[in-house]
């Protein structure tokens, strides 16, 4: 996890530096706000990964000499098929159409989205591992 976190912390350091330079050369607040936001975008997950690296050490995929057997154990649980992304996508589709064509699209959209969220949560609980 160390290299992963260093990439994101590098994002934070670079945009923190650029943000400072930009602010003191331009005093323009819009661009500075976006650069500071980008700095935080690197800082938050970067420090999170560093925290986990400190606790976990090097995983098999971080070690040059790891063998495939070192990854033994359950990798992850993957759903092999699910209808709910489609239902949620169509709900989102109708939701944005409501903004263009009128509120009558809004109600089926909310119905689809709520159904899909309930469905996907129930599916995860049934799967047991997700």
């Amino acid at each position: 996890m160390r290299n992963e976190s260093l990439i994101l912390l590098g994002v934070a350091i670079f945009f923190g530096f650029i943000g400072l330079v930009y602010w003191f050369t331009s005093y323009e607040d819009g661009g500075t706000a976006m650069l500071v936001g980008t700095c935080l975008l690197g800082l938050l997950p970067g420090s999170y990964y560093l925290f986990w690296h400190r606790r976990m050490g090097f995983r098999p995929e971080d070690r040059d000499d790891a063998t495939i057997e070192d990854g033994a154990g359950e990798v992850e649980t993957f759903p092999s098929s699910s209808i709910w992304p489609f239902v949620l996508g169509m709900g989102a589709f109708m939701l944005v159409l409501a903004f263009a064509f009128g509120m009558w699209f809004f109600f089926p959209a909310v119905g689809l989205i709520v159904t899909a969220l309930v469905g996907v949560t129930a599916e995860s609980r049934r799967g047991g591992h997700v």
Partner: protein
Amino acid sequence: MTDVITPTTTGDGAHGPSVVDVAGHEHEEHGPTGLLKWVTSTDHKVIGMSYMITSLVLFYFAGIMALVLRIQLATPSSSLVSFAQYNELFTMHGSLMLYLFAGPFAFGGLANYIVPLQIGAPDMAFPRLNALSYWLYLSGSITMMMGFLVAGGASEFGWVAYAPLSNATNSPGLGPDIWIMALVLTGFSAIFTGVNLVATIFYLRAPGMTMFRMPIFTWNMLVTAILILIAFPVLTGALVMLFCDRHFGTHIFSVQGGGSPNLWQNLFWFFGHPEVYILALPYFGIATEIFPVFSRKPVFGYKGMVFATLSIAALSTGVWAHHMFTTGVVLLPFFSLLSLLIAVPTGIKFFNWIGTLWRGQLQFSAAMLFAIGFLFAFLMGGVTGVMLASPPIDFFTHDTYFVVAHFHQVLFGTAVFAGFAGLYYWYPKFFGRMLREGLGKWHFWLMFIGFWVTFMPQYVVGLLGMPRRVAVYPSYLGWQSYNIISTVGAFIIATSFAVLLWNLWISWRQPVPCGDNPWDAHTLEWFTTSPPPHHNYSHLPPIRSERPTWDYHHPDSPAIAHGEGRPPRGDKVLVSP
């Protein structure tokens, strides 16, 4: 249905993950069939293929729009389309090509399909989120195309939607609203794919696949995903503000209410310039996969490539206002300096590509030809980009055809040349059969000739002063001959894409089967079968360098980690461990 992936020992002594369902039975193909199978699929390969097919269809639509635009411009005062229709066509051409083809083809299609294979993962980290990304992308694409069907037509303000042209007074009607909503949908789709790619690359690599053994394509997709996470939320936020300005009486982008039209440009280009690299970096990655394979060498300067990609991405986010030099309210030295600096890591990449080709055993397959075409095309676009980074030149050429030629050469060079290089290279992996190499070469040469014939005259006519986004122009300025040449070139390009369609058809109807690894390639995706099975791998080779498949198939060849060391030239070089 849910599958649990557990690494187990397989019969031939190699070890790797195998798939059992939660009840503990060996996995079989089960579940829905037919159309429902496609709709419910969370397999990254099915989703990636859906992305690629959808984006290619939209690419053809956008190409046809470009042909209409070129016919209109071949004569000075053509009446083929009205002014409004012309504006709709160039807006939709740009929007389709940039938002719906070039990006999604790479990070939705190729990356979705290839990245999990390249790092030895059974799927993307969040398969259902991945499926949601595709449905949002598809519905966003349909929404955008719906613009042509509503009263008032599609949006007419260009793909950049500058304020105040995009407000409710200057652009009334449903078309602009639909355009905004389409981009909100595809924006979320891109953000979800970005999250998914980062999580997949950070968490699902096979043991031994360290960060500095990942293929360059995967590296570039990781950097692209981070750029997506930086850029797309800004665009989505700006679009919501624009929609509020149009309908809810806010004045964020209008001077009357104390807002600032320049804020739109700031927000848009804070998305828009990283977007250029979101469109370019994946294609750099494709070319970097192809050069070593067809040069029979490891990639030259692996770490240099990685750090060049990282620095290009970092710099690209600090240069947004070089699109706004002529507004007069941006800090010229800051943005000019950072823009010029991007030439340095890009130059490193060019030298590394040439270093990879240097003294290799070159095989000029169709994929290799397209990748070499990409080098020339992108170099020309890049050099004129360095020119435009200089404010005095930009003041003179801003909003002329010089800029049009520049960004078409950059984006055509990357998304089209390198994109189709990727298609010819990975098609055998997708289907276990070959595309016709001869037709591929016809496709390449027609496209390569058409490319230069189309865009070189646009540089000249831009320097003569022809502005962008005009449907007619005066006949006495001597612009017509250049425009005619450019139109002829556009039709040569169109012919080349007819050849591609024929190639896809004939290769599908009369298949030429190929093995799992027809190119004797380097990276992990060529280790599994073609097409790969459900959850990708029954077993994995040991991963001891950045080209595990090559190491496995050439055990007497030295494992050259990180692209360093002496490349094998002709004879196999034996190195004692």
